């Protein structure tokens, strides 16, 4: 018994030490084995749920239909206006020679499993290394940033959410080009709240502002939507603000996600930036 306890404890300590850097072989292969169970269960469950959901939806179908007809008419009028704005935007872009920002390939994936322990919130997706997924790739939904890949098996991957207490990312309030309210967003262990720290207290921050990634953390690309500010405890000239953010990705109800096929640019070795350093070729991570 002592040997087993000691073995488990060493495994735990090793995992805790390198929780953000590596992945365990045991974890990867168990996930691969679990995929054969989880995928059919998820398929059957969603099929049964959709079947009963369709009955429930019939009750409100007539009302929804009337509302939708009205909404279509409104949207047609809106669309006319948007088309004009889009063409104007296109012209202005050409004028300013702006580059497109949506340059990352997105691999769509379904969530086939949730964390078996109630204490954590990681998810298992049905894409793995055979699909091109790599460790630390960002995961998003149409709402915004979800988290990053923390373990990759051949067929499946594990995703840790941004709400986890050990997660962190560089973020800015508002668009990066127009704001200097830069700080660090980290998880709070609460499932629907993030903390933003180190935003200078001298900058005015509004509740309801949107927070985006800066790309300076070496994991996430710049410009991804993180969430909306729900609370600001104002700081002073010497104290930073304490900001609470609600993630915009809808972390509790997501079924489909996208893995950004993104690899951050290789970091330069710090010494090379020193004025007296001898010039050597840059090394990758």
């Amino acid at each position, binding site marked *: *018994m002592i040997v*087993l*306890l000691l*073995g*488990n*404890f*060493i*495994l*735990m*300590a090793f*995992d*805790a030490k390198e*929780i953000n850097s590596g992945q*365990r072989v*045991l*974890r990867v292969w*168990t*996930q691969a084995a*679990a995929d054969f*169970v*989880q995928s059919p*269960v*998820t398929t059957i*469950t969603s099929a049964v749920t959709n079947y009963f959901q369709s009955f429930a939806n019939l009750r409100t179908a007539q009302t929804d239909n009337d509302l939708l007809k009205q909404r279509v008419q409104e949207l047609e009028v809106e669309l006319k206006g948007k088309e004009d704005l889009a063409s104007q935007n296109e012209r202005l872009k050409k004028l300013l020679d702006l580059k497109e920002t949506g340059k990352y390939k997105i691999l769509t994936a379904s969530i*086939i*499993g*949730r*964390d*078996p*322990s*109630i*204490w*954590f*919130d*990681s998810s*298992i997706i049905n894409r793995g290394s055979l699909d091109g997924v790599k460790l630390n790739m960002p995961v998003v939904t149409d709402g915004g940033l979800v988290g990053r890949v*923390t373990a990759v098996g051949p067929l499946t991957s*594990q995703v*840790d959410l941004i*709400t*986890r*207490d*050990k997660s962190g990312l560089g973020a800015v309030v508002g668009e990066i080009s127009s704001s200097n309210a830069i700080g660090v967003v980290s998880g709070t*262990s*609460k*499932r629907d709240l993030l903390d933003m720290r180190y935003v200078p207290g001298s900058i005015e921050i509004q509740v309801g502002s949107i927070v985006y990634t800066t790309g300076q953390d070496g994991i996430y690309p710049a410009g991804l939507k993180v969430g909306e500010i729900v609370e600001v405890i104002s700081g002073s000239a010497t104290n930073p603000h304490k900001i609470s953010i609600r993630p915009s990705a809808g972390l509790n109800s997501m079924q489909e996600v996208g893995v950004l096929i993104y690899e951050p640019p290789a970091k330069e070795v710090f010494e090379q930036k020193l004025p007296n350093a001898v010039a050597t070729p840059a090394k990758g991570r």
Partner: protein
Amino acid sequence: MEGIKITIAIIIAVVLQWTLRNVAEPLAYIDFPLIIVVYAALQRNAIKAILFGTLAGLAVDALSGGLLGANGFVKTLIAFIVSEIARRVYMDNLLLRIPVIAGACLLNNLLYYSLHRLLGQEPAGQVVVIMAYSLIGTTIAGTIVYLILDSVFVQKKRPKKRDMFSPRRQTRRRNPIRLNK
């Protein structure tokens, strides 16, 4: 034979733990592997129970965002404690098993949370709420599972005919050979 049955039960428990959160979120509060590990420990075979505890714990850890080995450590320890208690105290009654599974669940959650805090990890959610729901869910599910397991595992003895009926009374016959004559 009983070992094989418990092995099958523990595999089913791990698979249920992996999949049931997909079906409904509240089902994640039930710790199925713990229920089976405690059941195995109540059979008074400490070594088997400890091995089951380690394997089931590691299988859950492997798919969890928590520390690898945390569940393995906790379930190993619980299997040992329960089997030691079962060796000293009579535990074959279902009513006596209810406080055992409740206590094991409480200890499991406390140790799991403490180990993560000790190693610098903060589990998500409110501790007291999660522990309370887990205690209720696991105790109720555990009681039902034990009823099922008891009915599966206890080998039913077919009563023999001579046990069912009282032995026929034999009339005493006189010995036809009279030795004294």
